[in-house]
Every structure is written in structure tokens, then in C-alpha cells.
């Protein structure tokens, strides 16, 4: 079908057209900006309750700025990709690799902090517990994804 139009084939996310909906995490361009705003609101509320509304407002302003950047930064492919809409299979792959890399960095920091705590005669908390949750989450994810594939 040379010259044919294939635009009906939605190729969002890794995998076939069949499972495109399974990998579509951000269905709207408003999703991530609104999530940023929501997170900023939670930070503001938590800090307000904790008696520090000034820092809470700074946190809210920062996340509102991030939300605005994601919403209006349409000329940058990176901002578009971070914002959600317009992602295709390449972006899904970038997202998976970036998530894995982030997990690796967090894990290295957690192990370092845990060892630091142990070396100073403390029980290693809360880093040990966080690593236990992470390890369990990884095993459950592997079992689930293996069962699903």
C-alpha cells in the first residue's frame, strides 16, 4: 500500500496496536501539569499543617512553575515528552530506560545511606525498610510481568 495513510494505527507506547491503551499513561496534555499542581497543593497543605506555610508556598510555586513549563513548553520535544501527549513508541522506550536509571540511582543512594547509618551505630532505618519495599516491589513486578507476557 505504497503511499497509504497509516494514521489510524495508534503507535503509542511499546508493543502492538492491540495493547496501545495499556501503555498510555498520560492521556491528556493536562494530566502532568495538573498532577504537578496537585502535588504542589499537597506540599503546601503538609507544610502549612507542620507550621511552615512560607516554605509550603515556595514548594507550591515551584511545582506550579513545572506544571506551566510542561503545559506551555510545546516547542521542546523533551518537555512535550515529559508532559505526556504526543508520545510514541520511542518515547515509551526512553521513559522505561529513564525510569530504570532513576531506580538505579535511588537504589545506590539508599544503600549508601543505609551503610552510613549502620556504620554510625544506628539501625539503618528508614533506609533498610525502603529497600525492603523496593526489593519486594521488584519481585512482585517481575512475577506479574512474566505471568502477563
Amino acid at each position: 500500500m505504497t503511499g497509504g495513510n497509516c494514521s489510524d494505527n495508534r503507535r503509542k507506547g511499546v508493543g502492538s496496536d492491540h495493547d496501545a491503551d495499556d501503555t498510555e499513561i498520560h492521556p491528556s496534555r493536562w494530566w502532568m501539569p495538573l498532577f504537578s499542581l496537585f502535588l504542589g497543593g499537597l506540599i503546601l497543605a503538609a507544610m502549612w499543617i507542620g507550621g511552615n506555610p512560607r516554605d509550603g508556598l515556595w514548594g507550591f510555586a515551584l511545582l506550579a512553575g513545572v506544571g506551566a513549563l510542561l503545559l506551555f513548553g510545546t516547542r521542546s520535544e523533551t518537555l512535550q515528552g515529559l508532559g505526556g501527549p504526543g508520545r510514541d513508541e520511542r518515547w515509551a522506550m526512553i521513559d522505561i530506560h529513564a525510569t530504570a536509571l532513576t531506580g538505579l540511582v535511588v537504589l545506590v543512594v539508599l544503600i549508601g545511606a543505609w551503610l552510613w547509618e549502620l556504620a554510625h551505630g544506628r539501625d539503618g532505618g528508614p533506609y533498610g525498610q525502603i529497600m525492603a519495599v523496593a526489593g519486594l516491589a521488584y519481585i512482585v513486578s517481575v512475577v506479574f510481568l512474566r505471568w502477563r507476557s
Partner: protein
Amino acid sequence: MKNEIRELRTARGLSQEDLAKKMDVSRQTINSIEKERYTPSLPLALTLARFFAKPVEEIFDAKGE
């Protein structure tokens, strides 16, 4: 993965943007495929092969990776 996408696209007078729209991916994805930095998924490779009316193994060369 080595591929003939750029040659096939330019032979048809299409821009990267045109091909991206037809494949329902971003222009940057077509650019990455042409520069052999990104290997497309099997569905996208098959759709590209169908679009250019060529067997997929004539467009993509896994041994040339």
C-alpha cells in the same frame, strides 16, 4: 540497525514530517531511525515495509547493526 528508510523516503519526495504523520510517530522518531540510533518496534517496522511496498528484510538489516 542499518536501514534504507532515508533513501526510500527521499525517493518518494517525502519529508521526515510527512512520513512521521503517515506512521503516526514523531518526526524525531523517524530521524532517530534514519540515523540508526533507534530500532523501531516490529509493528512499526512492518508498517514501514508495507508503506514502501518492500519486504521488511530489504529495509532493515539486523546484521549491519
